[in-house]
């Protein structure tokens, strides 16, 4: 009996609101947009202060790697370029991700499909706990415990793979190298990447895993054919989140890495740097002009990290939706 009425425009629950609600909604909007104001201020202010640097050096700021504040009372002699630091940041963060992802994947598979049920909940909360360990503690541990050992590993690595340019070393000094900083960062981002991977692997469809078992597949067979392909983009998302965190790390890297202002791809050599530790080490006695240089460097790091994080969350969100 429902007659075919032409569908009127859809009615929404709105209508006149009491004054208090108008006030309430307004206040909440203002409060929520506070985070916009803060973010805009950060980007805006760094751009405002650093703009002169971009004007003076243009793209040179990104390509040259000399960082020389020149004569104190004659700012025109200053030369600023963060190429070495930018390359250093990306290099160390890449080493961290390359080392962390395979172990994070295996640990995630172990926790989700091999560890007994009771142990699984304990391990998950331990992972979240370790992700909260402050970076200064990782720094002091890296400085006193990891560095001596890692120097030994670098030597052995060099002795085996020395012929390969990446592992070649200009001089036989192996301390405070990007390799060691990368290893320390890998250990710091392991909890984050592992918990993202574990969450995505846990959502692999149960009936497909059963199908693999019913075909006579072993547990590893089921993981290889169903779980790992399902979790692939989730793992990529987790790795990028780890990359974002590693790019911005300051204290831990500052303690274990030698700050040298030239681009160095020989990861075992004791020379490197990253934008964050550049800012931490120079801001103290920076002249106003050098401070603007640091602002510009901060802005570049901010934009790079923002891009990596935005891409990472998009990938992880899509991974969770794809059945």
């Amino acid at each position, binding site marked *: 009996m429902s007659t075919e009425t032409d569908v009127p425009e859809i*009615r929404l629950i*709105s209508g006149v609101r009491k004054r208090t609600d108008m006030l309430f909604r307004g206040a909440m909007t203002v409060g929520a947009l506070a985070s916009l104001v803060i973010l805009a201020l950060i980007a805006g202010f760094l751009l405002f202060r650093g703009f002169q640097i971009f004007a003076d050096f243009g793209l040179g700021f990104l390509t040259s790697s000399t960082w020389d504040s020149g004569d104190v009372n004659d700012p025109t002699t200053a030369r600023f370029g963060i190429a070495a630091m930018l390359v250093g940041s990306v290099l160390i963060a890449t080493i961290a991700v390359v080392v962390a992802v395979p172990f994070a994947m295996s640990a995630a598979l172990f926790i989700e499909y091999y560890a007994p049920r009771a142990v699984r909940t304990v391990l998950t909360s331990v992972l979240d706990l370790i992700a909260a360990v402050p970076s200064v503690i990782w720094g002091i541990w890296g400085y006193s415990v990891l560095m001596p050992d890692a120097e030994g590993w670098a030597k052995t690595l060099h002795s085996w793979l020395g012929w390969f340019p990446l592992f070649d070393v200009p001089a036989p000094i192996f301390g405070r190298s990007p390799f060691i900083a990368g290893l320390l960062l890998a250990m710091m981002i392991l909890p984050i990447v592992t918990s993202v991977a574990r969450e995505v692997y846990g959502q692999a469809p149960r009936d497909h895993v059963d199908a693999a078992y019913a075909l006579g597949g072993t547990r590893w067979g089921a993981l290889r054919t169903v779980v790992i392909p399902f979790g692939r983009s989730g793992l990529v998302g987790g790795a990028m989140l780890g990359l974002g965190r590693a790019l911005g790390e300051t204290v831990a890297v500052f303690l274990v890495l030698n700050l040298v202002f030239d681009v160095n791809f020989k990861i075992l050599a004791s020379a490197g740097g990253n934008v964050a530790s550049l800012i931490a080490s120079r801001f103290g006695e920076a002249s106003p002009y050098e401070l603007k240089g640091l602002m510009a460097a901060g802005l570049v790091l901010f934009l790079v990290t923002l891009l990596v994080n935005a891409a990472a969350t998009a990938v992880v969100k899509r991974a969770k939706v794809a059945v």
Partner: protein
Amino acid sequence: MSLVVDGVVARGAFSRVVSISIEPGRPVGLVGPNGSGKSTTLRAIAGLDRLASGTISLDGSVLDGADAFVPAELRGVGVVFQTMRLFPHLTALDNVAFGLRCAGASRHDARGQARRLLTSVGADHVADRRPATLSGGEAQRVALARALAPSPRVLLLDEPFASVDADSRPALRALLRSLVVGSGICSVIVSHDRADISDLTDVVVDLGSAG
């Protein structure tokens, strides 16, 4: 002071023409198989959803029309829905007092009035207990008191006694009859329990058959 619903309720692909008029003191029973639009109609009367088309008017003033809409909080429609449990963080007394506080009563007056209401529904012995500790029957009595506290002009009941054990239903039915039959409140009752419909309502609208 009658409530008139004349329009189309819709949810997703499903739509149904509904036309009911409810007189104060003469409760209307709404029956029909699941998915025939009973709950959607109640939610539309309460202002929690909107009609797809047509109007709902109370005593002549339009609550939901083509270009008029009074939101739920201004409509003064009491609801006792099965899914709408009591506020878990408030005691039974504060649950009942909540409506009065919204209407602007002071804490003291609201709690006094709430205690009187709890007594009238026979639930004053649970006044200071949290909803989680109440039995189905007790929770239903408190829900009834809570809905009646702001003295609504309309009272809607969706499966009011579903979570109440069979042998305490007659008492609750008698209580409800005393509150709605012959009172100034327009009320609509949805229930699968034939006894509720036959005992409390003399007008029955079957959404199942129409359409």
